[in-house]
């Protein structure tokens, strides 16, 4: 601990913490390819994630073409369709959302927001990105191997994932499993960095309870990911052995077309336990950073302190803890002990309490705030709205008797897309509109942003709301075509066509967003250092975009939390975290609160 002295005015000299030895690259390759600067690594993560995310988006459009207009597109075979379903899910959950929130925003924002020069282990951080890129490339490669990518669904359930008859049961699944393992190794390297940096590299005065909620969200999600990803890792390794060496970890005794396969005694349920032990926390690994970022967006653009900061932190931690105790609710249809089911249904419903608390606090932060309908704010409000909608259908599905009939229908697709696809996506769009000015020094074009927002927001509801209804009708998910099922009325097909048209419009609109990103980089309005008049440290850097080392000569000292907006008596409607009390007094405020 560093001993700090301060004079009577309360002014504290800048931090005397030990300066880290920064690696100053001088070559182009050192600066922009094998960079050790967390900001650049964050941008690398972000662009790679968005690129593979576009592939995931294209796959979903192909699926929709088939569902909306069956038998029109001859190149979409049943096998292709299953491959699209699988790869869309895997790409979006793991390679887009996890990588973008933790690798992208985590790298860019953590050091800047906590007042550090860089991550504590920069080389490991760099390797983390390259392993991520390698994992993405391996996954993409699986499209091009004989048999194509795996079509076993994003949950990769054995035994079908590795049995002939499932698309990509050969090299496809092998590459997918290897890709996941590489991703996890890379993520662990990054994750260690995020956790240790938040714990050990905060600048003076930045106590844990002065951290912006964005950092709390990313930090907690990283801890969860570090503990949950090993489950996916070990299950991927075990399935890889089942596939390649013929072990029977997960593979039961199987007779295939009259032939006795060389498996025996393995249990697919074991895989399901391992997978969902990772899979459910994964939902919150994606959601918690989104919660944190949404809190900061709402507070900043409503010019009001976040309501119930401490409760928000507790809610993040409690959700993080509880999410490890609900995994088997994904397995109700696999059959389980009644009390086991009761336990998991109960924990699932309990998790709604801290989640609801967060929603109330967001709404109360907006209450009588000075709301600016900027593009980031529109996305943040849309997130709250969508998250509530998606969360409510979760309350239905958390109950065993309701889950069982609905589990294999489009109702579930609608639920999880609203709650863990559209919601976090809205947040990362909002976050990109919010932090793009800091990353590039230019504002994103607002008109294009608003068009992008409204089409995406309304479009998402056009896509996923009708799916709830289709699910209630009993329209199954994962099916290539539902031709003449007696319980599906012809109008269901009309609705499917409508959804497809909406999906195509929303999908195309994302190109406008990409265009905006590129156009604004060259022609956007110069942003200045703090265009949103925000309090957090990343907006107080000497240069925009911040240079290597982030804060110039001296690290900032922090005097307050991140939410001093509209403080009565203050000269401006925001007080940066690093503004000393004396300076504020000189600015006309008398400290009245």
């Amino acid at each position, binding site marked *: 601990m560093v001993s700090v002295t301060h004079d009577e005015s309360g002014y504290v000299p800048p931090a005397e913490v030990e300066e880290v030895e920064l690696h100053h690259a001088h070559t182009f390759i050192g600066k922009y390819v094998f960079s050790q600067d967390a900001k650049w690594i964050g941008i690398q993560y972000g662009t790679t994630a968005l690129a593979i995310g576009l592939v995931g988006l294209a796959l979903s459009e192909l699926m929709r073409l088939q569902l909306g207009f069956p038998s029109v597109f001859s190149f979409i075979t049943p096998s292709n369709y299953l491959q699209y379903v699988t790869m869309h899910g895997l790409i979006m959950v793991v390679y887009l959302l996890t990588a973008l929130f933790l690798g992208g925003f985590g790298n860019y924002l953590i050091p800047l927001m906590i007042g550090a020069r860089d991550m504590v282990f920069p080389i490991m951080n760099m390797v983390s990105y390259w392993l991520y890129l390698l994992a993405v490339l391996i996954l993409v490669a699986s499209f091009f191997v004989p048999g194509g990518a795996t079509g076993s669904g994003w949950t990769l359930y054995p035994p079908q994932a590795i049995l002939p008859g499932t698309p990509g049961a050969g090299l496809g699944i092998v590459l997918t499993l290897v890709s996941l393992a590489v991703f996890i190794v890379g993520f662990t390297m990054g994750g260690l960095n995020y956790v240790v940096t938040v714990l050990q590299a905060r*600048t003076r005065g930045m106590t844990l309870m002065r951290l912006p909620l964005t950092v709390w969200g990313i930090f907690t999600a990283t801890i969860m990911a570090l503990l949950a990803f090993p489950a996916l890792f070990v299950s991927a390794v075990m399935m890889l052995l089942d596939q390649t060496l013929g072990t029977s970890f997960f593979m039961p005794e199987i007779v295939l077309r009259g032939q006795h396969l060389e498996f025996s005694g393995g249990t697919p349920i*074991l895989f399901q336990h391992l997978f969902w032990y990772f899979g459910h926390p994964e939902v919150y690994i994606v959601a918690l950073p989104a919660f944190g970022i949404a809190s900061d967006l709402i507070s900043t653009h409503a010019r009001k302190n976040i309501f119930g900061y401490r409760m928000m932190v507790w809610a993040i931690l409690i959700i993080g803890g509880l999410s490890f105790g609900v995994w088997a609710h994904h397995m109700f249809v696999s059959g389980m002990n009644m009390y086991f089911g009761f336990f998991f249904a109960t924990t699932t419903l309990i998790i709604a309490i801290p989640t609801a608390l967060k929603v109330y606090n967001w709404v109360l932060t907006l209450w009588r705030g000075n709301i600016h309908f900027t593009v980031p704010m529109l996305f943040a409000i849309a997130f709250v709205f969508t998250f509530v909608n998606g969360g409510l259908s979760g309350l239905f599905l958390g109950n065993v008797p309701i889950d069982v009939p609905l589990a294999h229908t489009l109702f579930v697709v609608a639920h999880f897309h609203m709650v863990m696809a559209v919601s976090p996506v809205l947040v990362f769009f909002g976050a990109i509109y919010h932090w793009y000015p800091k990353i590039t020094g230019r504002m994103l074009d607002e008109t294009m942003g608003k068009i992008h927002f409204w089409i995406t927001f309304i479009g998402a509801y056009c896509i996923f709301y009708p799916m709830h209804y289709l699910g209630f009708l009993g329209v199954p998910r994962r099916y290539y075509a539902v031709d003449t099922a007696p319980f599906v009325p012809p109008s269901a097909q009309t609705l499917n066509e409508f959804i497809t048209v909406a999906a195509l419009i929303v999908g195309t609109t994302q190109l406008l967003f990409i265009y905006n990103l590129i156009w604004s980089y060259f022609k956007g309005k110069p942003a200045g250092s703090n265009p949103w008049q925000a309090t957090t440290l990343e907006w107080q850097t000497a240069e925009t975009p911040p240079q290597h080392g982030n804060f110039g000569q001296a690290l900032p000292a922090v005097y307050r939390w991140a939410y001093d907006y509209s403080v009565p008596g203050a000269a401006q409607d925001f007080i940066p975290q690093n503004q000393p009390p004396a300076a504020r007094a000189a600015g006309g405020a008398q400290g009245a609160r």
Partner: protein
Amino acid sequence: MMTPLVVVVLIMAVAMIWLLRQTVNVRPWIEEQPLDNASSGASFSLPPATVGLGVFLAVATSLFVLTICAYFMRMMAADWRTLVFPSVLWLNTGMLIVSDLAMQSARAAARRAQMDRVRVGLIAAGICSFAFLAGQIWAWLQLNASGYFATANGGGGATVGPANSFFYLFTALHGVHVLGGLWVWGRTTARVWRGADAARVRLSVELCTVYWHYLLVVWLVLLALLVPAVSELCRGRLSF
């Protein structure tokens, strides 16, 4: 099956309770508290590498615990056969213990700035660790030669069981962790060899030692679970 999960629950509970304790009675909205010792930078008075190792050990524990859970769950199936225990594992265990003791002596020497002893300790630890790995591979070859390949029942007759698959999995996962440790050991030893002073290598040697203790504990747990008598006992309890 659920028992090993308690370890992961404990890790999470410690992390969550520690974090919650940081938040109780703190009111950040009351601004401008004077900065004192309590609000300076880091959460722990430890170097980042030490905290990093601590976090990594939590991750590795999660990995091993989940693998052990899988072992217990798979054990309940009807086709379970006890492992044909390769006797060389006892020798390997001895090697790992010696390696750990050598590492511990290097740490003690580093604290007293006796660089010659540090060198001896590190080299001995490294040689024994490599010998351990070689012994593990020897055990694989032994099993393989006797027809107990990783495959479950496939064509291998009644004596080959899934326990063999887990034996390969356990030893491989543990071996990879040993290899990772040896990489750091190699870097540390190279620095000592180039004449780095005790103050500069002390932290590396200490962290290596902690990691070696961890590797030993994990191996002892895995070994215990593989010993036929123990695995039978576990199976009896699980079936019950």
